[in-house]
């Protein structure tokens, strides 16, 4: 198998689902001939036609709302936000229609919203969004956030096949930075299951997305250089959360660091920390620590962005602090 980048893996996931199921179609701004701002859909309109890879007007609410409509009558739309930031314009459609329809009507809403997320690319306050926390709180939505090409393809396919609205967070920072062999076969990665990326006995480090890749590097380095042996868990799915996998690890390490790129307060890490603090109370040897971006918009200039977002140094410092607690 050829080495595949993260974005190629997403692309391939879409292609395979378009081939497999005629009810699957794509919709979004500039996704047709152009192949999307990041070229994730490149070649797909050519191969599947303008009926199944649809260029839309610049209208996020209509895109998401139309996906809901198509989904409730049996189609499986996969829509792209050009940047995750712009999902705020379609927010109402997601929380009012997509999330609440199955509960009210008993009708499945199989749709995927692709969200090119995150910072570390000097995009500034409007091209660096980590939108998960808003939707994490909304019953009826699922959220996945792959950090590897294999998971990106596999979770994309699982999302397409899921009968619920799934937000697919894909990381611009990872698009062309991470590569791996993708084995043949269906490769669906089930939604709701975390993966242990590094076994360890001292600290449970929970993370996802871009910053997971940084955390993993740091964990390796600290194990090598300082004997701090962290178990690194990649959440992969944020909703549903694989609570059992987290608790299992915590029961063996007794210490937890949660790292997310999104700003700290009210982030997904708050729920995880609350959950672990409650359900692993007697196993904890130290307070559950969280590391996230500072509670600011993501600034534009590099030194500012560097200061605001979590980075290797901050992760290392947090691990050291916990280790010596």
């Amino acid at each position, binding site marked *: 198998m050829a080495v595949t980048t993260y974005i190629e893996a997403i692309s391939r996931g879409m292609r395979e689902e378009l081939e497999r199921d005629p009810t699957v179609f794509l919709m979004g701004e500039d996704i047709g001939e152009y192949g999307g701002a990041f070229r994730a859909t490149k070649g797909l309109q050519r191969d599947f036609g303008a009926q199944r890879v649809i260029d839309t*007007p610049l209208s996020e609410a209509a895109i998401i709302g139309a996906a809901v409509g198509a989904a409730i*009558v049996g189609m499986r739309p996969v829509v792209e936000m050009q940047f995750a930031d712009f999902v705020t314009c379609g927010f*109402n459609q997601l929380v009012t229609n997509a999330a609440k329809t199955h509960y009210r009507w008993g009708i499945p809403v199989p749709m995927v919203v692709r969200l090119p997320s995150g910072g570390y690319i000097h995009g500034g306050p409007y091209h660096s969004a980590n939108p998960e926390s808003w939707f994490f709180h909304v019953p009826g939505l699922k959220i996945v956030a792959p950090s590897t090409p294999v998971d990106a393809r596999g979770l994309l396919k699982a999302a397409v096949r899921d009968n619920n609205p799934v937000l697919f967070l894909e990381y611009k920072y990872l698009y062309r930075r991470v590569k791996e062999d993708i084995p043949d076969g269906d490769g669906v990665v089930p939604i709701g299951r975390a993966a242990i990326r590094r076994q360890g006995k001292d600290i449970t480090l929970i993370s996802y997305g871009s910053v997971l890749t940084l955390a993993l590097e740091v964990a390796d380095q600290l194990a090598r250089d300082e004997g701090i042996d962290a178990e690194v868990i990649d959440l992969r799915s944020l909703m549903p959360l694989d609570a059992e996998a987290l608790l299992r690890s915590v029961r063996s390490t007794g210490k937890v660091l949660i790292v997310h790129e999104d700003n700290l307060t009210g982030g997904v890490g708050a729920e995880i920390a609350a959950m672990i603090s409650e359900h692993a109370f007697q196993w904890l040897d130290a307070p559950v620590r969280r590391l996230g971006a500072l509670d600011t918009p993501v600034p534009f200039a590099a030194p500012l962005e560097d200061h605001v977002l979590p980075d290797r140094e901050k992760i290392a410092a947090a691990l050291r602090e916990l280790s010596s607690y």
Partner: protein
Amino acid sequence: MTHGVDIASIPGAGTIPGTREGEPPVPGRLTPGDKIALYYYLCLARACDEAILKLYRQGKIVGGAYTGRGNEATAVGSAYALEKHDYLLPMHRDLGAHLVKGQSLRNIFLQQLGRAESLTRGRDGTGHYADPALRIYGNVSHLGSMIPVGVGIALAAAMRNENAVVLNYIGDGGSNVGDFHEGMNMAGVMKLPFVLILENNQYAYSTPVAKQTAAARFSDRAAGYGVPGITIDGTDVFTVYDTCRMAYDRARRGEGPTLIETVSMRMHGHSASDDASYVPPAQLEEWEKKDPIARCEDRLRREEILSDELKQEIHVRIETEIADASRYAEEAPHPEGSEGAKGVYAD
């Protein structure tokens, strides 16, 4: 028995036809049976509204109660021109459309009362249900939010070559929400089989149209989406029927959406708890003269389709039907509380 028509002669073994399989009559060619059916549905919708109001006054309805008084011709006429496989996305004053599309009175009352066997199993109220078998997809409270959804259904229908039309409604107030714009524009550029009826009933809650927009007519908005727009009398069921039928034909021919502004008057308060004291009485009096039922009756009498006898028969029937349904719903069990925890996600 008048002019060769009586209620029993109507096709459908005693049931009055609503939305049908295959094409409904072309404009101007409604049969006497169709006309009686229209009259029946106008009266049924109003009587059902009244029964709901009565339940409300008895304290049996806990949420709000919204009536379509004054809007019956729009709801009934537009739905009657649909075909069975068309999609209906009604708003909160379109009870008549639900009924014409085939919804049972029992389901209507069950929804109002939030009972266990209602179409939403008590999870949501009023017209906020879906009935995929009838291709009815109800509304949400958020005005405008169903327009993009309707557009998406039209997109799916077009992709699957269903030759189906999506009929959606919006109020004069709701039409100022962004989703109206995004949805209409998308439907226009994709030439989708989507028809939007903009029910201009002079008020959005307490706000008169003049404070909602400076547009002379809401149908003037259609050109901005490359779509035909027309303003019609929303109190004349025949005008509504004819206009809609033409719009649906156009949609089926692949020529895209139409925006139809129906002008009428909201004859009740916004909801049962609103006495609408902000509406000048003279305005109501003026519009009372254009009562949709009276107008329809007039015409049927002029055409000698409706006799006193038949009218009596129809009203007795309606009374019985409503009494039955409303009693049924009142006696139906409430949902078990624990049901509330279930069904957030599909399997």
